[in-house]
Protein backbone atom coordinates (compact mmCIF):
# COMPACT_ATOMS: atom_id res chain seq x y z
CA UNK A 1 0.00 0.00 0.00
CA UNK A 2 1.44 3.33 -1.07
CA UNK A 3 1.93 5.76 1.79
CA UNK A 4 -0.23 8.86 1.70
CA UNK A 5 1.44 12.17 0.91
CA UNK A 6 0.94 15.84 1.66
CA UNK A 7 -0.57 17.69 -1.30
CA UNK A 8 1.77 20.65 -0.98
CA UNK A 9 4.71 21.93 1.02
CA UNK A 10 2.57 24.74 2.44
CA UNK A 11 0.05 22.14 3.59
CA UNK A 12 2.73 20.25 5.52
CA UNK A 13 4.14 23.42 7.11
CA UNK A 14 0.70 24.62 8.16
CA UNK A 15 -0.11 21.20 9.66
CA UNK A 16 3.22 21.01 11.51
CA UNK A 17 2.84 24.60 12.74
CA UNK A 18 -0.76 23.84 13.72
CA UNK A 19 0.46 20.90 15.75
CA UNK A 20 3.15 22.90 17.50
CA UNK A 21 0.91 25.92 18.16
CA UNK A 22 -1.47 24.89 20.87
CA UNK A 23 -3.03 26.14 24.05
CA UNK A 24 0.41 26.31 25.68
CA UNK A 25 1.55 29.05 23.31
CA UNK A 26 -1.34 31.20 24.48
CA UNK A 27 -1.55 30.41 28.17
CA UNK A 28 1.89 29.12 29.14
CA UNK A 29 4.55 31.06 27.23
CA UNK A 30 3.48 34.62 28.20
CA UNK A 31 3.52 33.77 31.90
CA UNK A 32 6.84 31.93 31.61
CA UNK A 33 8.39 34.98 29.97
CA UNK A 34 6.88 37.36 32.53
CA UNK A 35 8.05 35.24 35.46
CA UNK A 36 11.55 34.61 34.16
CA UNK A 37 12.96 38.02 33.44
CA UNK A 38 10.45 39.50 30.95
CA UNK A 39 12.26 40.56 27.79
CA UNK A 40 15.50 39.07 29.12
CA UNK A 41 13.84 35.62 28.95
CA UNK A 42 14.01 35.86 25.16
CA UNK A 43 17.79 35.43 25.32
CA UNK A 44 17.73 31.92 26.86
CA UNK A 45 14.49 31.15 25.00
CA UNK A 46 15.87 31.99 21.56
CA UNK A 47 19.14 30.26 22.45
CA UNK A 48 17.15 27.14 23.40
CA UNK A 49 15.18 27.45 20.16
CA UNK A 50 18.41 27.45 18.12
CA UNK A 51 20.27 24.78 20.10
CA UNK A 52 17.44 22.40 21.02
CA UNK A 53 14.22 23.20 19.16
CA UNK A 54 15.55 23.45 15.62
CA UNK A 55 18.02 20.51 15.81
CA UNK A 56 15.38 18.27 17.43
CA UNK A 57 12.84 19.22 14.78
CA UNK A 58 15.34 18.57 11.96
CA UNK A 59 16.15 15.19 13.52
CA UNK A 60 12.48 14.15 13.84
CA UNK A 61 11.60 15.38 10.33
CA UNK A 62 14.65 13.52 9.03
CA UNK A 63 13.77 10.30 10.87
CA UNK A 64 10.13 10.34 9.75
CA UNK A 65 11.10 11.16 6.19
CA UNK A 66 13.91 8.60 5.96
CA UNK A 67 12.08 5.68 7.57
CA UNK A 68 8.59 6.50 6.26
CA UNK A 69 6.50 5.51 9.22
CA UNK A 70 4.78 6.28 12.47
CA UNK A 71 6.95 6.37 15.62
CA UNK A 72 6.92 2.59 16.34
CA UNK A 73 7.85 1.81 12.75
CA UNK A 74 10.62 4.42 12.70
CA UNK A 75 12.20 3.08 15.89
CA UNK A 76 11.69 -0.54 14.77
CA UNK A 77 13.62 0.24 11.61
CA UNK A 78 16.41 1.81 13.63
CA UNK A 79 16.62 -1.42 15.61
CA UNK A 80 13.94 -3.91 16.50
CA UNK A 81 14.69 -3.50 20.20
CA UNK A 82 13.87 0.21 20.05
CA UNK A 83 10.27 -0.22 18.87
CA UNK A 84 9.04 0.12 22.46
CA UNK A 85 10.06 3.80 22.47
CA UNK A 86 7.75 4.40 19.52
CA UNK A 87 4.86 2.77 21.39
CA UNK A 88 5.72 4.69 24.55
CA UNK A 89 5.55 7.91 22.54
CA UNK A 90 2.25 6.83 20.98
CA UNK A 91 0.85 6.12 24.46
CA UNK A 92 1.94 9.62 25.59
CA UNK A 93 0.07 11.04 22.59
CA UNK A 94 -3.00 8.90 23.37
CA UNK A 95 -3.13 10.06 27.00
CA UNK A 96 -2.62 13.70 26.06
CA UNK A 97 -5.36 13.41 23.42
CA UNK A 98 -8.00 12.25 25.90
CA UNK A 99 -7.47 15.07 28.39
CA UNK A 100 -6.52 17.84 25.94
CA UNK A 101 -9.90 17.45 24.26
CA UNK A 102 -11.61 18.28 27.56
CA UNK A 103 -9.93 21.69 27.56
CA UNK A 104 -11.02 22.22 23.94
CA UNK A 105 -14.54 21.31 25.11
CA UNK A 106 -14.36 23.98 27.82
CA UNK A 107 -13.16 26.48 25.22
CA UNK A 108 -16.10 25.60 22.94
CA UNK A 109 -18.49 26.14 25.87
CA UNK A 110 -16.88 29.47 26.71
CA UNK A 111 -17.02 30.46 23.05
CA UNK A 112 -20.81 30.04 23.10
CA UNK A 113 -21.08 31.83 26.46
CA UNK A 114 -18.89 34.72 25.36
CA UNK A 115 -21.60 36.24 23.15
CA UNK A 116 -23.55 37.19 26.29
CA UNK A 117 -20.79 36.76 28.91
CA UNK A 118 -23.11 34.40 30.73
CA UNK A 119 -20.28 33.47 33.10
CA UNK A 120 -21.23 36.59 35.08
CA UNK A 121 -19.06 38.76 37.28
CA UNK A 122 -17.66 36.01 39.52
CA UNK A 123 -15.76 34.08 36.85
CA UNK A 124 -13.87 31.99 39.41
CA UNK A 125 -17.03 30.80 41.15
CA UNK A 126 -18.74 30.22 37.83
CA UNK A 127 -15.93 28.10 36.34
CA UNK A 128 -15.43 25.78 39.30
CA UNK A 129 -18.94 25.80 40.75
CA UNK A 130 -21.46 26.20 37.98
CA UNK A 131 -19.57 24.99 34.91
CA UNK A 132 -17.31 22.18 36.14
CA UNK A 133 -19.51 21.48 39.19
CA UNK A 134 -16.38 20.58 41.12
CA UNK A 135 -17.34 19.45 44.61
CA UNK A 136 -15.35 19.44 47.85
CA UNK A 137 -15.48 15.64 47.92
CA UNK A 138 -14.02 15.25 44.41
CA UNK A 139 -10.45 14.13 43.79
CA UNK A 140 -8.59 12.60 40.84
CA UNK A 141 -9.92 9.21 41.96
CA UNK A 142 -13.36 10.46 43.11
CA UNK A 143 -14.60 11.80 39.81
CA UNK A 144 -18.35 12.00 40.33
CA UNK A 145 -20.67 11.83 37.34
CA UNK A 146 -20.35 12.87 33.70
CA UNK A 147 -21.26 16.52 33.18
CA UNK A 148 -23.01 16.85 29.85
CA UNK A 149 -22.32 20.59 29.55
CA UNK A 150 -18.66 19.48 29.22
CA UNK A 151 -19.19 16.17 27.42
CA UNK A 152 -21.28 17.60 24.56
CA UNK A 153 -18.77 20.28 23.44
CA UNK A 154 -16.07 17.66 23.90
CA UNK A 155 -17.99 15.41 21.50
CA UNK A 156 -18.06 18.29 19.00
CA UNK A 157 -14.25 18.56 19.27
CA UNK A 158 -13.92 14.81 18.76
CA UNK A 159 -16.21 14.99 15.71
CA UNK A 160 -14.04 17.68 14.08
CA UNK A 161 -10.85 15.74 14.81
CA UNK A 162 -12.45 12.54 13.52
CA UNK A 163 -13.51 14.24 10.29
CA UNK A 164 -9.95 15.47 9.68
CA UNK A 165 -8.31 12.11 10.46
CA UNK A 166 -10.94 10.10 8.59
CA UNK A 167 -10.46 12.30 5.52
CA UNK A 168 -6.79 11.40 5.31
CA UNK A 169 -3.60 13.42 5.03
CA UNK A 170 -4.38 15.50 1.98
CA UNK A 171 -8.17 15.77 2.08
CA UNK A 172 -8.55 15.82 5.84
CA UNK A 173 -5.60 17.11 7.87
CA UNK A 174 -4.06 19.32 5.19
CA UNK A 175 -7.39 20.86 4.24
CA UNK A 176 -8.27 21.51 7.89
CA UNK A 177 -4.85 23.08 8.55
CA UNK A 178 -5.15 25.34 5.51
CA UNK A 179 -8.38 26.73 6.92
CA UNK A 180 -7.51 26.73 10.61
CA UNK A 181 -4.04 28.25 10.69
CA UNK A 182 -4.62 31.37 8.56
CA UNK A 183 -7.85 31.89 10.51
CA UNK A 184 -6.01 31.60 13.83
CA UNK A 185 -3.34 34.09 12.78
CA UNK A 186 -5.96 36.53 11.44
CA UNK A 187 -7.99 36.37 14.64
CA UNK A 188 -4.98 36.91 16.89
CA UNK A 189 -3.73 39.83 14.78
CA UNK A 190 -7.22 41.36 14.73
CA UNK A 191 -7.49 41.03 18.51
CA UNK A 192 -4.08 42.63 19.04
CA UNK A 193 -4.97 45.46 16.65
CA UNK A 194 -7.94 46.31 18.88
CA UNK A 195 -6.49 45.52 22.30
CA UNK A 196 -3.27 47.47 21.87
CA UNK A 197 -5.18 50.77 21.80
CA UNK A 198 -7.09 50.12 25.01
CA UNK A 199 -5.99 52.02 28.13
CA UNK A 200 -3.37 50.15 30.12
CA UNK A 201 -2.49 47.74 27.29
CA UNK A 202 0.97 49.21 26.76
CA UNK A 203 1.66 49.00 30.48
CA UNK A 204 0.84 45.32 30.24
CA UNK A 205 3.31 44.91 27.39
CA UNK A 206 5.90 46.73 29.44
CA UNK A 207 5.53 44.09 32.16
CA UNK A 208 6.03 41.36 29.57
CA UNK A 209 8.99 42.82 27.71
CA UNK A 210 10.83 44.91 30.34
CA UNK A 211 14.12 43.00 30.62
CA UNK A 212 15.50 41.97 33.98
CA UNK A 213 18.98 40.88 32.92
CA UNK A 214 19.90 39.69 36.43
CA UNK A 215 17.67 36.66 35.74
CA UNK A 216 19.93 35.44 32.94
CA UNK A 217 22.47 34.28 35.52
CA UNK A 218 19.81 32.08 37.15
CA UNK A 219 20.07 28.44 35.91
CA UNK A 220 16.35 27.98 36.62
CA UNK A 221 15.54 30.52 33.91
CA UNK A 222 17.60 28.53 31.40
CA UNK A 223 15.85 25.34 32.48
CA UNK A 224 12.50 27.08 32.07
CA UNK A 225 13.50 28.24 28.58
CA UNK A 226 14.59 24.76 27.48
CA UNK A 227 11.52 23.21 29.10
CA UNK A 228 9.24 25.63 27.25
CA UNK A 229 10.93 24.81 23.92
CA UNK A 230 10.47 21.04 24.44
CA UNK A 231 6.83 21.45 25.52
CA UNK A 232 5.86 23.76 22.69
CA UNK A 233 7.20 21.95 19.65
CA UNK A 234 5.31 18.62 19.74
CA UNK A 235 8.61 16.73 19.63
CA UNK A 236 9.28 13.49 21.48
CA UNK A 237 5.76 12.10 21.27
CA UNK A 238 5.34 10.65 17.82
CA UNK A 239 3.64 13.56 16.07
CA UNK A 240 6.41 15.04 13.96
CA UNK A 241 7.66 11.56 13.03
CA UNK A 242 4.22 10.69 11.67
CA UNK A 243 3.71 14.02 9.90
CA UNK A 244 7.12 13.97 8.20
CA UNK A 245 6.62 10.38 7.06
CA UNK A 246 4.02 11.70 4.61
CA UNK A 247 6.49 14.09 2.95
CA UNK A 248 7.41 13.42 -0.66
CA UNK A 249 10.83 11.92 -1.36
CA UNK A 250 12.26 15.26 -2.44
CA UNK A 251 11.66 17.50 0.53
CA UNK A 252 13.62 20.38 1.97
CA UNK A 253 13.76 19.02 5.52
CA UNK A 254 16.06 21.63 7.03
CA UNK A 255 14.13 24.63 5.80
CA UNK A 256 10.82 23.00 6.79
CA UNK A 257 12.11 22.48 10.33
CA UNK A 258 13.42 26.04 10.59
CA UNK A 259 10.09 27.42 9.37
CA UNK A 260 8.02 25.30 11.75
CA UNK A 261 10.06 26.21 14.82
CA UNK A 262 10.43 29.91 13.98
CA UNK A 263 6.73 30.39 13.20
CA UNK A 264 5.76 28.55 16.39
CA UNK A 265 8.08 30.65 18.57
CA UNK A 266 7.05 33.83 16.76
CA UNK A 267 3.42 32.99 17.42
CA UNK A 268 4.20 32.54 21.13
CA UNK A 269 5.55 36.10 21.29
CA UNK A 270 2.49 37.41 19.45
CA UNK A 271 0.25 35.50 21.88
CA UNK A 272 2.20 37.14 24.71
CA UNK A 273 1.42 40.56 23.24
CA UNK A 274 -2.27 39.66 23.09
CA UNK A 275 -2.49 38.24 26.61
CA UNK A 276 -0.53 41.03 28.28
CA UNK A 277 -2.42 43.78 26.49
CA UNK A 278 -5.66 42.20 27.77
CA UNK A 279 -4.21 41.88 31.29
CA UNK A 280 -2.85 45.44 31.15
CA UNK A 281 -6.28 46.77 30.27
CA UNK A 282 -7.89 44.68 33.00
CA UNK A 283 -5.43 45.97 35.61
CA UNK A 284 -6.10 49.53 34.45
CA UNK A 285 -9.89 49.12 34.60
CA UNK A 286 -9.77 47.58 38.06
CA UNK A 287 -7.11 50.06 39.26
CA UNK A 288 -4.90 47.17 40.37
CA UNK A 289 -1.23 46.45 39.69
CA UNK A 290 -0.75 43.92 36.91
CA UNK A 291 0.95 41.55 39.33
CA UNK A 292 -2.45 41.01 40.96
CA UNK A 293 -4.25 39.96 37.79
CA UNK A 294 -1.57 37.96 35.99
CA UNK A 295 -2.00 34.18 35.82
CA UNK A 296 -1.41 31.24 33.50
CA UNK A 297 -2.94 27.97 32.33
CA UNK A 298 -6.55 27.07 32.95
CA UNK A 299 -6.93 29.95 35.42
CA UNK A 300 -5.85 32.48 32.81
CA UNK A 301 -8.09 31.18 30.01
CA UNK A 302 -11.27 30.43 31.94
CA UNK A 303 -11.18 32.78 34.92
CA UNK A 304 -8.97 35.81 34.24
CA UNK A 305 -9.71 36.30 30.54
CA UNK A 306 -13.52 36.02 30.96
CA UNK A 307 -13.25 38.62 33.73
CA UNK A 308 -11.15 40.80 31.40
CA UNK A 309 -13.67 40.32 28.57
CA UNK A 310 -16.40 41.66 30.89
CA UNK A 311 -14.48 44.95 30.99
CA UNK A 312 -13.79 45.25 27.25
CA UNK A 313 -15.68 47.42 24.80
CA UNK A 314 -17.82 45.22 22.48
CA UNK A 315 -17.22 42.08 24.55
CA UNK A 316 -19.76 40.21 22.39
CA UNK A 317 -17.28 40.47 19.48
CA UNK A 318 -13.86 40.30 21.16
CA UNK A 319 -14.87 37.48 23.53
CA UNK A 320 -16.06 35.07 20.84
CA UNK A 321 -13.01 35.84 18.67
CA UNK A 322 -10.65 35.08 21.57
CA UNK A 323 -12.32 31.78 22.47
CA UNK A 324 -12.66 30.76 18.84
CA UNK A 325 -8.90 31.30 18.46
CA UNK A 326 -8.36 29.14 21.54
CA UNK A 327 -10.59 26.39 20.07
CA UNK A 328 -8.75 26.48 16.74
CA UNK A 329 -5.31 26.38 18.41
CA UNK A 330 -6.43 23.39 20.46
CA UNK A 331 -8.10 21.53 17.62
CA UNK A 332 -5.15 21.80 15.22
CA UNK A 333 -2.94 20.24 17.90
CA UNK A 334 -5.52 17.60 18.82
CA UNK A 335 -5.78 16.49 15.19
CA UNK A 336 -2.00 15.97 15.06
CA UNK A 337 -1.96 14.05 18.35
CA UNK A 338 -4.67 11.69 17.13
CA UNK A 339 -2.90 11.27 13.79
CA UNK A 340 0.22 10.13 15.69
CA UNK A 341 -1.86 7.39 17.34
CA UNK A 342 -3.91 6.47 14.26
CA UNK A 343 -0.89 6.17 11.97
CA UNK A 344 0.75 3.77 14.44
CA UNK A 345 -2.25 1.42 14.24
CA UNK A 346 -2.44 1.74 10.46
CA UNK A 347 1.25 0.79 10.18
CA UNK A 348 1.20 -1.98 12.76
CA UNK A 349 -2.16 -3.69 12.23
CA UNK A 350 -2.64 -2.80 8.55
CA UNK A 351 -6.01 -1.27 9.35
CA UNK A 352 -7.53 1.04 6.79
CA UNK A 353 -7.39 4.73 7.74
CA UNK A 354 -11.17 4.87 8.08
CA UNK A 355 -11.22 1.91 10.44
CA UNK A 356 -8.26 3.15 12.49
CA UNK A 357 -9.76 6.66 12.76
CA UNK A 358 -13.13 5.27 13.85
CA UNK A 359 -11.65 3.00 16.52
CA UNK A 360 -9.11 5.51 17.87
CA UNK A 361 -11.60 8.39 18.03
CA UNK A 362 -14.40 6.15 19.36
CA UNK A 363 -12.31 4.69 22.17
CA UNK A 364 -10.72 8.09 22.78
CA UNK A 365 -14.13 9.72 23.21
CA UNK A 366 -15.27 7.12 25.73
CA UNK A 367 -12.05 7.39 27.78
CA UNK A 368 -12.12 11.18 27.62
CA UNK A 369 -15.54 11.20 29.33
CA UNK A 370 -13.66 10.64 32.59
CA UNK A 371 -12.34 14.20 32.16
CA UNK A 372 -15.88 15.53 31.69
CA UNK A 373 -16.84 14.63 35.25
CA UNK A 374 -17.08 16.75 38.41
CA UNK A 375 -13.49 15.90 39.32
CA UNK A 376 -12.28 15.81 35.72
CA UNK A 377 -10.21 18.95 36.17
CA UNK A 378 -8.30 17.36 39.06
CA UNK A 379 -7.62 14.19 37.10
CA UNK A 380 -6.54 16.29 34.11
CA UNK A 381 -4.21 18.37 36.24
CA UNK A 382 -2.56 15.32 37.79
CA UNK A 383 -2.20 13.32 34.57
CA UNK A 384 -1.00 16.38 32.63
CA UNK A 385 1.69 17.04 35.23
CA UNK A 386 3.09 13.52 35.08
CA UNK A 387 2.84 13.20 31.30
CA UNK A 388 4.43 16.57 30.51
CA UNK A 389 6.97 16.81 33.29
CA UNK A 390 8.09 13.21 33.55
CA UNK A 391 7.03 10.96 30.65
CA UNK A 392 7.54 13.40 27.78
CA UNK A 393 10.92 14.61 29.01
CA UNK A 394 12.05 11.02 29.61
CA UNK A 395 10.93 10.10 26.10
CA UNK A 396 12.96 13.00 24.63
CA UNK A 397 16.06 11.94 26.60
CA UNK A 398 15.82 8.30 25.51
CA UNK A 399 15.24 9.34 21.90
CA UNK A 400 18.29 11.60 21.99
CA UNK A 401 20.36 8.91 23.68
CA UNK A 402 19.40 6.31 21.08
CA UNK A 403 19.92 8.67 18.16
CA UNK A 404 22.99 10.45 19.48
CA UNK A 405 24.91 7.67 21.16
CA UNK A 406 23.63 4.23 20.14
CA UNK A 407 22.84 4.83 16.50
CA UNK A 408 24.78 7.06 14.17
CA UNK A 409 23.15 10.46 14.20
CA UNK A 410 25.47 11.07 11.25
CA UNK A 411 23.14 9.02 9.03
CA UNK A 412 20.25 11.40 9.72
CA UNK A 413 22.60 14.38 9.45
CA UNK A 414 23.74 13.22 6.00
CA UNK A 415 20.21 12.38 4.95
CA UNK A 416 18.77 15.80 5.78
CA UNK A 417 21.72 17.65 4.25
CA UNK A 418 21.53 15.59 1.05
CA UNK A 419 17.91 16.41 0.38
CA UNK A 420 17.74 19.96 1.76
CA UNK A 421 18.52 23.18 0.00
CA UNK A 422 20.89 24.33 2.74
CA UNK A 423 22.98 22.17 5.04
CA UNK A 424 23.26 22.18 8.79
CA UNK A 425 26.76 21.94 10.22
CA UNK A 426 28.23 19.95 13.08
CA UNK A 427 26.44 22.18 15.61
CA UNK A 428 23.42 20.00 14.84
CA UNK A 429 25.11 16.91 16.28
CA UNK A 430 26.76 18.78 19.16
CA UNK A 431 23.41 20.21 20.27
CA UNK A 432 21.64 16.86 20.09
CA UNK A 433 24.41 14.78 21.66
CA UNK A 434 25.48 17.11 24.46
CA UNK A 435 23.54 20.30 25.03
CA UNK A 436 19.92 19.11 24.77
CA UNK A 437 20.41 15.91 26.84
CA UNK A 438 22.17 17.84 29.61
CA UNK A 439 19.34 20.34 29.94
CA UNK A 440 16.72 17.60 29.68
CA UNK A 441 18.40 15.49 32.37
CA UNK A 442 18.63 18.50 34.71
CA UNK A 443 14.96 19.41 34.17
CA UNK A 444 13.71 15.81 34.46
CA UNK A 445 15.91 15.12 37.51
CA UNK A 446 14.59 18.24 39.24
CA UNK A 447 11.00 17.32 38.39
CA UNK A 448 11.39 13.76 39.70
CA UNK A 449 13.06 14.91 42.92
CA UNK A 450 10.45 17.61 43.52
CA UNK A 451 7.60 15.18 42.90
CA UNK A 452 9.09 12.50 45.14
CA UNK A 453 9.85 14.85 48.01
CA UNK A 454 7.02 17.37 47.83
CA UNK A 455 4.31 15.55 45.88
CA UNK A 456 2.21 17.58 43.50
CA UNK A 457 -0.76 19.89 43.90
CA UNK A 458 -1.66 18.61 47.35
CA UNK A 459 -3.03 15.36 45.91
CA UNK A 460 -2.99 12.21 48.02
CA UNK A 461 -0.05 9.82 47.72
CA UNK A 462 -2.32 7.04 46.47
CA UNK A 463 -3.51 9.25 43.61
CA UNK A 464 0.08 10.20 42.74
CA UNK A 465 1.20 6.58 42.80
CA UNK A 466 -1.72 5.11 40.85
CA UNK A 467 -2.64 7.87 38.41
CA UNK A 468 0.82 9.41 38.06
CA UNK A 469 3.70 6.98 38.50
CA UNK A 470 1.41 4.00 37.88
CA UNK A 471 0.16 5.42 34.60
CA UNK A 472 3.70 5.99 33.33
CA UNK A 473 4.74 2.49 34.43
CA UNK A 474 1.70 0.99 32.69
CA UNK A 475 2.51 2.86 29.48
CA UNK A 476 6.09 1.65 29.64
CA UNK A 477 5.10 -1.97 30.30
CA UNK A 478 2.56 -1.88 27.48
CA UNK A 479 5.18 -0.50 25.08
CA UNK A 480 7.70 -3.19 26.04
CA UNK A 481 5.07 -5.96 25.77
CA UNK A 482 4.09 -4.83 22.26
CA UNK A 483 7.78 -4.68 21.32
CA UNK A 484 8.34 -8.22 22.60
CA UNK A 485 5.20 -9.49 20.89
CA UNK A 486 6.25 -8.05 17.55
CA UNK A 487 7.60 -10.93 15.60
CA UNK A 488 7.52 -9.52 12.12
CA UNK A 489 9.73 -6.74 10.91
CA UNK A 490 7.66 -3.88 9.64
CA UNK A 491 9.06 -2.91 6.29
CA UNK A 492 6.19 -2.21 3.98
CA UNK A 493 7.47 1.25 3.11
CA UNK A 494 11.18 0.92 2.59
CA UNK A 495 13.40 3.65 3.97
CA UNK A 496 14.67 6.22 1.55
CA UNK A 497 18.21 5.43 0.50
CA UNK A 498 20.96 8.00 0.62
CA UNK A 499 20.99 10.21 -2.43
Amino acid sequence: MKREQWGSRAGFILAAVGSAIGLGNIWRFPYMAYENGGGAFFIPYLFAMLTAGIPFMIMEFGMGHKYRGSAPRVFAQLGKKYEWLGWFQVSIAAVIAVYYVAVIGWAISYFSMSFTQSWGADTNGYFFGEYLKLGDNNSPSQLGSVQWQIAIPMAIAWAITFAAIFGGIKSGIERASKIMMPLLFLMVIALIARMIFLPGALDGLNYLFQPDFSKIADPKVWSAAYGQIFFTLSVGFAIMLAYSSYLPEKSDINNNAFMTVLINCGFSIIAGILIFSILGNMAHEQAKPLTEVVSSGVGLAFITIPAAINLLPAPYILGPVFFFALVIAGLSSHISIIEAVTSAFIDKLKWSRKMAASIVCGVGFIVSLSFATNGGLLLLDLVDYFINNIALLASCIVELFIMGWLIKLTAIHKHVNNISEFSVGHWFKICLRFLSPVFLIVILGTNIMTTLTKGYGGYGQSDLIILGWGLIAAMLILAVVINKASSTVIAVNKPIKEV
Partner: protein
Amino acid sequence: MTTGAIIMMVLGLGLTWGGAALCIRKAMQKQKSRE
Protein backbone atom coordinates in the same frame (compact mmCIF):
# COMPACT_ATOMS: atom_id res chain seq x y z
CA MET B 1 6.70 51.22 27.13
CA THR B 2 10.33 51.65 28.10
CA THR B 3 13.11 51.62 25.52
CA GLY B 4 14.42 48.34 26.96
CA ALA B 5 11.01 46.69 26.59
CA ILE B 6 10.65 47.95 23.00
CA ILE B 7 14.14 46.69 22.08
CA MET B 8 13.42 43.22 23.52
CA MET B 9 10.05 43.03 21.76
CA VAL B 10 11.61 44.00 18.43
CA LEU B 11 14.45 41.54 19.01
CA GLY B 12 12.08 38.65 19.79
CA LEU B 13 9.71 39.37 16.93
CA GLY B 14 12.55 40.17 14.53
CA LEU B 15 14.50 37.00 15.14
CA THR B 16 11.51 34.66 14.95
CA TRP B 17 9.38 36.26 12.25
CA GLY B 18 12.38 37.66 10.40
CA GLY B 19 13.93 34.20 10.34
CA ALA B 20 10.65 32.65 9.25
CA ALA B 21 10.28 35.24 6.47
CA LEU B 22 13.78 34.43 5.19
CA CYS B 23 13.01 30.70 5.17
CA ILE B 24 9.68 31.26 3.38
CA ARG B 25 11.44 33.48 0.81
CA LYS B 26 14.02 30.76 0.20
CA ALA B 27 11.28 28.16 -0.24
CA MET B 28 9.39 30.39 -2.67
CA GLN B 29 12.54 31.06 -4.71
CA LYS B 30 13.10 27.32 -4.96
CA GLN B 31 9.51 26.84 -6.06
CA LYS B 32 9.91 29.53 -8.76
CA SER B 33 13.15 28.06 -10.04
CA ARG B 34 11.41 24.71 -10.49
CA GLU B 35 8.58 26.19 -12.56
